[in-house]
């Protein structure tokens, strides 16, 4: 990083990939910088794993509680080879997607409706605040009672977590509509649909996408939690089983799998965001 240009360093600090360099020398410098970052990341992860492994082997930490990387890799291999795992991955993923998409649709729609009317907002806001304040995980047994050991109990919990984020983000974004845009829409005698399509929705999209980013992870959390409390399948149920039978290697491998799943889902939202918010792709 020491030979990076000040501009590149500044852009890197902003968390955005810096704009493409102009000269070939600059390209090479950039490529070297990127490579250094990648290698350092890899080295950091390896170092932590080695410390963990050594600590477990030397008996500094209890192997039975903390496991160790090599054992986890073995457990992970076993898991990936078993046929049952994939049906559980599918069950968890399906419930997450339904809860996430349903929660997003309901949250955005409700946010748009409530956000467009000050009266409706004032009437509903205490109610929504109380509902949002409820410990949703505690509702899991209730959802199981209502929907049985089906996918819908998980979807309900997942949706209940996702919906409020999208609701508040959408409603908040509606309040940030540029006043000049409103004036332009009035001078052009725009109808409600045209105004929504050309001004309101694009204004809200960045906040909606930000909500979806948090929502997908929370949605997965809701499904895993629901599966841990009461379910006949899914990764959450496998986690409970592994910990109850004291298979710490398997437990750790499962947690790793869930993390990977979350990263993949996050990347999908990322990809969607870049497509939906096209006008920000290379601003400045």
């Amino acid at each position, binding site marked *: 990083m020491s030979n990076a240009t000040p501009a590149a360093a500044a852009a890197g600090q902003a968390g955005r990939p810096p704009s493409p360099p102009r000269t070939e020398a600059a390209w090479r410098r950039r490529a070297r910088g990127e490579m250094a970052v990648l290698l350092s990341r890899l080295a950091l992860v390896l170092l932590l794993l080695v410390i963990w492994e050594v600590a477990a082997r030397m008996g500094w930490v209890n192997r039975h509680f903390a496991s160790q990387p090599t054992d986890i890799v073995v457990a992970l291999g076993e898991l990936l080879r078993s046929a049952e795992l994939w049906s559980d991955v599918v069950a968890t993923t399906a419930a997450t997607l339904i809860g996430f998409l349903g929660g997003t649709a309901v949250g955005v729609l409700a946010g748009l409706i409530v956000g467009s009317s000050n009266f409706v907002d004032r009437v509903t806001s205490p109610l929504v605040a109380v509902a949002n304040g409820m410990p949703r995980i505690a509702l899991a047994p209730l959802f199981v009672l209502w929907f049985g050991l089906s996918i819908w109990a998980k979807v309900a919990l997942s949706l209940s977590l996702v919906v409020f984020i999208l609701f508040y983000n959408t409603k908040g974004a509606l309040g940030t509509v540029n006043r*000049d*845009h409103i*004036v332009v829409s009035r001078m052009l005698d725009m109808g409600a649909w045209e105004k929504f399509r050309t001004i309101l929705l694009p204004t809200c999209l960045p906040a909606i996408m930000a909500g979806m980013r948090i929502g997908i992870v929370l949605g997965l959390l809701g499904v895993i939690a629901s599966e841990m409390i009461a379910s006949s399948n899914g990764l959450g149920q496998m986690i409970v089983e592994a910990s109850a039978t004291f298979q710490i290697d398997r437990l750790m491998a499962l947690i790793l799998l869930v993390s990977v799943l979350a990263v993949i889902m996050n990347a999908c939202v990322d990809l969607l965001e870049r497509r939906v918010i096209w006008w920000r792709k290379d601003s400045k």
Partner: protein
Amino acid sequence: MQNVVRIRREPEGMTESSAQAAPAGGPVITARDLVFRYPSANGGDPTIDGLTLDFARGAITVIVGASGCGKTTLLNLIGGLLRPSDGELLVDGGVPAAQHAKMGYMPARDGLLPWRNAIANVTLPLEGGRSDLTAKGRKERARELLERVGLGRYVDYFPDQLSHGMRQRVSLARALVSDPQILLMDEPFGALDAQTRLRVQSDFLRALENSGRSVVMITHDLQEAILLGDRILVMSSPRGAILADRAVEIEGSRAGRLHELVVTDEFRALYHDLVDVVMSGFTEVPGAAGRAS
């Protein structure tokens, strides 16, 4: 080259200067005993109280005044965004809100949609059944307008990728794309630095001179008022009184000569005259800036 900035103390009739270049017809905008009171100002003074005024057809009328003097309110009334509390205001013989098809509007900050590139921003007034053009025809028309303001190479650029001056030019192209008879401008060049402003003002004049369009522009910049206006109205708080009404006559085209005009004695004389008028009526209004914006 001789620049003549002729200043006349008394506006003659409905400003003859503009009547020469303008198409026939009476004033484009008429206000009779116009009163406007903001609903929130409970029982307070009206922002505009008993204004009677005509705006000549085909002329550039500039309204100057300090923040909070009511000039933005007047522009919003003409644009039909606000309704008069009392009195009469007609735009081309009709109620302002019913005349939007004849108006172009240019806000202070460009007001462009960040999610649309330059050309798609300019086609906006032609969409939604507001013109008979096909999608292709709309694009062609928008491209033509962007070329006219010197942005032919930037049609695909998003507002974020353009400079302030370029964005104002896109905004100008958007305001003109539907070929409106009346152009309303709310401090359109206020956010630009001095050099860019002269350039964009020149482009503005090039697009407007001899077009027969009527322009109502508000600004707090006296230099801009003299350079662009056929007529200057100095407005003042309270009650939106018109303190002065000046006609500006400049021989020949002004576009491209603005930097020469600002150093003429006539320009300076008119500038000093306006400064005196503005300062004589200047009273600071608490919180008025926020209300006007």
